[in-house]
C-alpha cells in the first residue's frame, strides 16, 4: 500500500489506496460514506443481498486504523445507510466498532442519511464536512466519486479521490457503495479549474487529470435529475 501525497493550503495529506485520507501532522484519519447496514436496508425492501457488508467495511477500517494509529478518526457522514441503520448492526459489528473506539477517538459527522455528533469539524486551515460547499480548504465525501479510463480498448473504472489545490473529495468507503461519474456536473462544478483524480488500485493510486476521465456512462442519472 503506497499512499500518495497531495497539498492543500500548505498541508501535506496522504491519500491511501484503500480510500482514506491521512493527515500526518495532526495524526488524523478521514474516511467518508461507510454506509453501514446498507445490505439490511436493501433486505428490508426484499432484495436479500449478502449481509456481510458492514463486517467487510469495518474490517477494512480496522486495518487502516491499526496501520496509521490515528489520534482521531473522522467519519465524514453517511456512516450508516439510514437513520435506523445503527439499530440493525449485528453484535459482532458492534464489538468491532467498540474495539475501534478504544484505538482512536472517533468523530461521527452528520450525513444526509444519518445524524452525527457534528455538522463539520474545523481543523485549521482545513474543514471536514459531509457535503462539499465549494469552500476553500474543505475535505468532503457525499458524492462517491468514481472515474473510468480507457486503455488499448479496455475500460477500467474505480472509485477515486478528486483533488485540486483547494479541496479534496473522498471516495465512498462502504462495501456496497456505488459511484458517481466524476464527469457529472455535481462533481465537475466543484473543480472549475480542473483537478486530478486518483483511482484506487490494489497497492497504489493511479492519477489522471479530471479531464482525461472516460465516461462512466450512467446516463439514466441525468434522466432522473428532473424528477
Amino acid at each position, binding site marked *: 500500500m503506497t499512499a500518495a501525497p497531495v497539498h492543500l493550503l500548505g498541508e501535506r495529506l496522504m491519500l491511501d489506496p484503500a480510500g482514506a485520507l491521512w493527515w500526518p501532522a495532526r495524526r488524523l484519519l478521514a474516511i467518508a460514506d461507510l454506509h453501514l447496514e446498507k445490505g439490511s436496508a436493501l433486505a428490508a425492501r426484499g432484495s436479500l443481498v449478502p449481509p456481510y457488508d458492514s463486517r467487510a467495511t469495518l474490517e477494512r477500517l480496522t486495518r487502516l486504523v491499526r496501520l496509521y494509529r490515528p489520534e482521531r478518526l473522522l467519519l465524514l457522514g453517511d456512516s450508516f445507510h439510514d437513520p435506523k441503520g445503527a439499530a440493525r448492526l449485528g453484535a459482532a459489528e458492534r464489538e468491532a466498532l467498540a474495539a475501534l473506539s478504544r484505538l482512536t477517538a472517533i468523530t461521527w459527522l452528520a450525513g444526509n442519511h444519518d445524524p452525527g455528533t457534528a455538522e463539520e469539524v474545523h481543523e485549521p486551515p482545513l474543514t471536514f464536512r459531509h457535503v462539499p460547499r465549494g469552500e476553500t480548504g474543505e475535505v468532503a465525501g457525499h458524492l462517491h466519486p468514481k472515474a473510468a479510463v480507457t486503455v*488499448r480498448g479496455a475500460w477500467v473504472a*474505480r472509485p477515486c479521490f478528486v483533488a485540486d489545490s483547494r479541496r479534496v473529495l473522498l471516495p465512498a468507503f462502504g462495501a456496497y457503495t*456505488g459511484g458517481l461519474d466524476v464527469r457529472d456536473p455535481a462533481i465537475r462544478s466543484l473543480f472549475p479549474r480542473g483537478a486530478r483524480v486518483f483511482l484506487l488500485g490494489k497497492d497504489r493510486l493511479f492519477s489522471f487529470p479530471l479531464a482525461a476521465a472516460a465516461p462512466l456512462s450512467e446516463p439514466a442519472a441525468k434522466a432522473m435529475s428532473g424528477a
Partner: protein
Amino acid sequence: MPEPIPAPPDLAPLPAPLAAWFARRGWQPHPHQRAVLAAARAGRSALLLAPTGAGKTLAGFLPTLADLAETPRPGLHTLYVSPLKALAADIARNLERPIAEAGLAITLDVRTGDTDQASRRRQREAPPNILLTTPESLALLLSFPDSARLFADLRTVVVDEIHALAGTKRGDQLALCLARLGTLAPGAVRIGLSATAPWPDHLAAFLSADGRGTGVERIAAPPGAAPAIEIRLPEGPLPWSGHMGLMAAEAIYRLIRAHRSTIVFVNTRAQAELVFAALWRLNDDALPIALHHGSLARDQRLKVEAAMARGELRAVVATSSLDLGIDWGEVDLVVQVGAPKGVSRLLQRIGRANHRWDEPSRAVLVPANRFELLECLCALDGVREGALDGDPSPPGGLDVLAQHVMGTVCAGPIHPDELYAEVTRAAPYRDLARRDFDDVVRFVEDGGYALSAYERYRRLFRDAEGRLHLADERAARRWRLNIGTIVEAPLLKVKLGRGFGGATLGEIEEYFVSLLNPGDTFLFAGRLLRFDRLRETVVECSPAHGDDPKVPAYAGGRLPLTTYLADRVRALLQDRRRWQGLPADVAEWLELQRRRSRLPGPADLLVETFPRGGRWFLVAYCFEGRNAHQTLGMLLTRRMERAGFRPLGFVATDYVLAVWSAAEPRDVARLFDEEMLGEDLEEWMAESSLLKRTFRHVAVIAGLVERNHLGGAKTGRQVTVNTDLIYDVLRKYEPDHVLLRATRADAARGLVDVGRVALMLRRARGRIVHMALSRVSPLAVPVLLEVGKEHVATGEGQDALLAEAEAAQLLAEARGEADPPAVTPPPLRAERPVHPVHRANVARDRKRRPGGIALGTQGRATLRTIRSRRQASLPLPE
C-alpha cells in the same frame, strides 16, 4: 437415429372434416404426421425429428385438431410453446387457415410478452382451446393461484424447436414448467418438434414426464434431399487471417443476382454491418438487400421479416437472429460467410433455404482465411456423412431453479419434498442433489446465508406441516416483474437526430459507446453515423460521410468451434492424401509446416516456441475454441509470470493460443499442468470481469437483484447495489454460497468455458509435443497476424492496465499534449434534492457495463479493405 415409422392406417384415422380438408387440397398426411397422431391418440408422448419443410407444425397439431374435431368442447386443450414470440404468432396464423377451411369450432390465441393486459385476463378467465406461448409467458401463467384450474383439462403440450431450447437456461425454465404441468395435468401428452439433432435421447428426456425419456416415442421424418453445398474462394492466395470475408463481396453479389432470394449468414453483428455495406457498394442494380441482426430496432427487424415473407427481398444479411423461425419459401440460396463453427449449425442455416424437403437446399460457403477453409471443408464432410455435433445438455442452472421455486410458491403453498420430487422429473434437474435443492429453497426463503441476519425479511415462511408459503404478496408482484432467464447486456438506444423526433435505429452496447468521442463515425444499421452526444439513455447520431468508421463489436457474438469440427480439422491436418484437393498455396503451407516443425496430431498438444522481434512466442495448437483459449491464456500467463518468463500478452483464435514473453519459456509441459485449474483459476475468478458478468446474470435470474423495480426509483433512495460489489463480498465471506456455485457451473461453459480447458489439459497430459524452433513456423503465421488486431490481454488484470494508462497520460503531459482543462462548468447548485449517487446507482444497476472487454479486430476494420477481387469456385477434394 430411429427409422421412419409408417403408421398403421387404422390407428390414426382422420376425422371426417379434416380428412375432407386434406382431400380438397389434394394432400395426404405424411407417414410421420400419422405416426404422431397415432402416438398421441394412444396417450403416448412423441418426439418428432424432421428436417425443415417436412410439415412439422401440422404434425404437432394434428392430434389436437383431430380430437377437437371429433369432440368440440370449451377449455384449454393444447398448449404450444415456442422459443420465439414471432414464431408463436406465425404458427397461429398458419393454424387459423385449416381450422377455418375445415370448418372446425376451435379457438386459439397467442400469449407472449407482447400480449396486452386485457387479453391476458380474458385468456385466464375464458381460455382458448389452443394457447400459443413462450417459456417465459408459461412460467408467468403457472405462478398464478388459478393455474391449477386453468391447466386441469390440458390434453396436449406441443414444444416447438425443442433442440434450440434444451441445454439453455430458457430450456431449464421450460423443463421445470413441464414438470409443473405434469403435476397439474398428469394426463397430457407431450409432442416435441425438433430439427434433426445429434442427441435425440436428450431431447426425449427433456420432453418426457419423468425426465428420463420414458414413454416418449421417437419418430423421424425421412431425411430431405441432400443439400448442394459448394465452397467459394477468392482468386489468388487465400488470406492468412481476418474473419470478415469482405474480399468475397463481389462473388456474393453475383450469387444474389443469380438467385431469387438469398440469405447471407455471417457470424457477428459487426461482420453483418461490414458485409452489408460492401454489398451496397456493389449494388449498381439497386437490388433490395436488407440487414437483420439482434441489435436493430424491433420495428426494423419486423419490417425486414415481413418484406422477406412477401418475397420482396433479393437478399438479407443476417446473424443467428435468423437461424430459427418463420419459414420463407422464396429463399433459394444460403451463403455462409466465414467459418460455420459446427456441422449442426451449418445444417440449420442451410435449411433456411428452400423449404420443400424433397428438393435440395443450395448453399455456398465463403471462408475468410486458411483455417476457415479447412473448417469449411471438414464441415462439408460432416454434412455429407450425416454427422451432427453439439454438446449434450449440461445440468440445469440453480439460478433458474430459484426463480422457479419462487414462482411455484407464488401459485400456492407447497411442501419442499413434493417440490423436490417434481423438479427432479425435469430432465435438466433429474440428478439434482437434495442439498443443492435445499440450498436453493433456503436462498429463496431468506437469502440462504450462514449468518442468519435476515429472519425478519423472509420471503417465505413454513407452516406447521413444513409447507412453504409466500410471506408477502408484494414479493410475488416483484417476482413477476423480473421473470425470465435472458439477461441483456446494458444497451443504449441509437437515434438519428436530436430530441424526441429522431428515428430509433436500434440498440448498441453501452461499452462501445464509452469508447466513442463526439465526431467519431461508426457503422450501424447499415448506415454510416456520426456520434454527436449521449443524452440520457440515447446515443444521438447524425448521418455521416467518409471513411474508416468504427464498427460496433460484440465480444460474445462469436460461437466457438465445436469439439467435433475441431477433431475433424486435426484429422485433415494429419492426412496428407487429402491435401491434394486443397488450393495449391494452402497445401504448400501445410507441407512447409510439416517440414519446418510438425503438424498437430489427433491426440497430442503441439506447442511451439520461437524468438521473433526481440520476444519469445509460445503457440499452442489446442483447437478448443476462442473462449476456452482466452481463459487458458489468462491462466497460462499467470503461471508464466510466476515462472519468471515475463509474459507480455496473448491472443486467442478458435484454433490456437499465442503468448509472447520477454524470456524464453522453458519446461513447457509443466506450464500446461492441470494444477493451473486450482489456485490460478481461483485467483483469476476473483477479478475476472467475465466471472463478474456471469455472477450478475445468475444474481438477476435467481432474484437476488431486480432488473425491474416496483416504483423503487421514486424514493430517490438507493435500492440496488452493484453486483460486482456483492460478488466480492460473497466470495470473501461465503465462497460456497449457492449463487457462487451456480456462477462456477456457468463458467464451466460459455464465455469462460473452463470445462473445455480442463478436458483439454487432462487429455494432453503426457502428450505435449514441444517444438523449440529458431523462427516462426508456417502454421503460426495466421495467429501472429492477429497480434495487434485482436484483444490483447495480460494475466495481470486491471491494475496493470491502469498503470499503463497512467504512464501514457504522463508522457502526453510531458509532451504538452494533455487534454485542456474541462470547459467552464455550470454554477454549483445550492441544493440537491436527490442524491446524485443514488440516481447513478439506480441507473447503473439497470445498465451494467461488461467491464474491461475489448473490441476485437472488427472495431478497426475499414471499408477500404473491401477490394473487388475475382472469385473462383473451388473444386472440392474427394
